[in-house]
């Protein structure tokens, strides 16, 4: 079922929906809906449409070139775009580094970076995690030392997702080893073309190349690459990771997947009747739909409440990710034997018919890859730690 939004919001939702249906190329929408790989060119194509409409970087205020949506419009915009099959916005530029720039970027950094983040000319990746520091991010060891007016960076970053497509990076490095871990970290931004950077692919168990490890060998960057103050990087990172958590709920995407799941399960027959009419399966789908509905309202409540998010922010991450996983599990249940043939290209072949049914090829890889959503962006264990701290435990 769909929530009833207030009239103004409902009008806006209709406007967004009409826009996406008109402007989103069918080929890109089909790829998204079939969970196939979106190319950088696809992403840029959609970004150009958004720029033309004035809706690029929907989270941004007007002064930086954003549409200046209020929080409700923002949520509706994200949900409708996802529901209609638009490529997800890349979080690193718009959602992660930009709010930090708004807050502590120099006028020059803002002027140079923000317009090109908006157009995706500058495509960012994130250098946070390291081999030894996953959930314990503050233990990172990549170093930057001052050398004249420059900083020289040495070390290794893990899980630099999309680094192979990115031309800019923002990263955390240790600039002081004498103080408490959190107090010796700084944040830098610079082009990936800077000499000394090596990107090596990490293939995930779905067989795809989404992420990388990135090595920094005497990478020399100017002092203008420093964001805000030296040794204040941890504070900025927390700001930015909070943003990651709310967008990670992916409510619109889950609504899209739920709709497709129902459609698929209505087509698949078991012992002569549609799978969707098999009550144990139907009830499992309904249970997820209900949880998702509750989560959507929880998100609205968090928006209405404003201010700094409490338990709801972590809840959005935890439940949002669990719902995503449950949906992939239900898709695998629906696929039956056709969940088995494994195709890392997710059906993007030249000339070949799909094996089984149209979207079967994406279900296995997507099921596997979606295991990551309870790990990244602060694992669900970390989220629950935070909730219990918020509760005073």
């Amino acid at each position: 079922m769909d929530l009833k939004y207030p009239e103004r919001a409902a009008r806006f939702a209709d406007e967004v929906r009409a826009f996406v249906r008109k402007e989103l190329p069918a080929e890109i929408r089909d790829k998204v809906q079939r969970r196939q790989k979106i190319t950088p060119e696809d992403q840029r194509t959609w970004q150009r449409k958004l720029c033309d409409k004035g809706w690029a970087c929907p989270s941004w205020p007007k002064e930086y070139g954003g549409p200046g949506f209020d929080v409700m419009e923002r949520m509706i915009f994200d949900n409708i775009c996802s529901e209609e099959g638009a490529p997800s916005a890349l979080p690193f530029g718009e959602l992660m580094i930009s709010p930090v720039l708004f807050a502590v970027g120099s006028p020059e950094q803002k002027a140079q970076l923000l317009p090109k983040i908006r157009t995706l000319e500058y495509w960012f990746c994130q250098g946070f995690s390291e081999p030894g520091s996953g959930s314990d991010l503050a233990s990172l060891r990549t170093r930057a030392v001052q050398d004249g007016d420059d900083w020289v960076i040495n070390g290794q970053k893990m899980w630099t997702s999309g680094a192979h497509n990115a031309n800019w990076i923002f990263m955390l490095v240790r600039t002081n080893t004498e103080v408490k871990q959190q107090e010796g970290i700084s944040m830098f931004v610079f082009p990936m073309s800077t000499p000394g950077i090596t990107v090596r692919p990490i293939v995930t168990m779905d067989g795809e190349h989404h992420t990388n490890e990135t090595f920094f060998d005497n990478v020399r960057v100017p002092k203008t690459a420093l964001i805000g103050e030296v040794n204040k990087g941890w504070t900025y990172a927390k700001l930015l990771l909070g943003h990651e958590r709310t967008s990670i709920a992916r409510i619109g995407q889950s609504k899209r997947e739920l709709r497709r799941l129902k459609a698929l399960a209505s087509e698949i027959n078991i012992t002569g009747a549609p799978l969707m009419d098999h009550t144990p399966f139907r009830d499992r789908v309904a249970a997820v739909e209900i949880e998702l509905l509750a989560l959507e309202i929880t998100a609205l409540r968090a928006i209405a409440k404003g201010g700094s998010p409490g338990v709801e922010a972590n809840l959005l991450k935890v439940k949002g990710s669990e719902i995503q996983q449950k949906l992939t599990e239900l898709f695998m249940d629906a696929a039956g034997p056709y969940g088995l043939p494994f195709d890392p290209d997710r059906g993007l072949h030249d000339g070949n018919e799909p094996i089984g049914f149209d979207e079967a090829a994406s279900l296995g890889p997507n099921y596997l890859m979606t295991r990551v959503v309870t790990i990244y962006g602060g694992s669900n264990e970390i989220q629950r730690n935070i909730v219990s701290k918020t509760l005073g435990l």
Partner: protein
Amino acid sequence: MDFTLTETQSLLKDTAERLVREKYTFDERKKIVAADESYSKALWDEFASLGLLGVEIDEDCGGIGGSFADLAIVLEAFGRGLVVEPYLSTVVIGVGLINTADKGDRRKDLLTQVAAGTLTLALAHGEPKSRYSLEHVETRARKDGGDYVINGAKAVVIGGDSADKLIVSARTDGNATDRNGVTLFLVDGNAAGIHKRAYRNMDDRGAAEITFENVRVPESAVLGPVGGALPLIEAANDRGAAALCCEAAGAMKAVNEITLEYLKTRNQFGRPIGKFQVLQHRMADMAMAEEQARSMVYLAVDFANEPDAAERAQAISAAKVQISHSGQIVGRGAVQLHGGIGMTIELVVGHYMRRLTSIEKMFGDIDWHIGRFAAA
């Protein structure tokens, strides 16, 4: 969906919460439950004088002419207080039915009495074999001259033990599970031919098995359309479920607070048990379950009086399923985190679990609501 309180609601909240805090302590409640009467008539009078019985009753009947959203405020406070007075049966179900189905002088008279605290009501609808099927009515009302004569048995009638008047469903036509042919009758609680077996439910609310043996009522006892009462009963059931969602939110909030406090103060192995990560995460899950439930309360409130039956059914069922799941997580979790002491009847924790379990099983259980949601 509005997440902010109106001025009326803020006032109601203060009133109901203060009442529960001051007059409905766990010790006071114990006395009420231990008494022979199924609820405190003194408190009921106080509800009336505070305006809590007339929330949805028009001003010309002595009410405050409010909405279900206003009622929700009171219900949440009553959920926190584990209130056993027949508020659900009288003010939610009874008033709802009369507001929708009745008109004229009788309507005004009944509502005025309810608002004044001089009339309690109960819907006698479920039957020994009906389970949650609302259309399953075997009780029959036979036309006899200008009267109807009612025969049949009603099961687990919430508030039926003490209600001044019963709203009884009976078949004036059709077979046991037909959608058409069901009629509502307004019957005196102690009319000749009525036999009650009274008891308390798991949540300590009064209820009764009620049999009707040639109970004779005049034609004017009919409430709503003859043979067409099922939509009214479905609406009443949805209002009941929505009300329970509100109560559950109050109960969950209260028991989560109590459990959190216990985790901070109970020491084992030389430290507060709230320092153990496994218990922390369980508490976190309970807090998140409460939040998800609360979100669905807004949905339930929004749709409680929705005239489009299909839309209402889907929304209420979604809410009831989520609230029931959350109630299991919170209720069972609270007992487990308290350990042995959580099992005793002297601690309020177990009573919250009993309330949340009852709520899960009233006006349709998880299975019934999830099926209705999915079929929509």
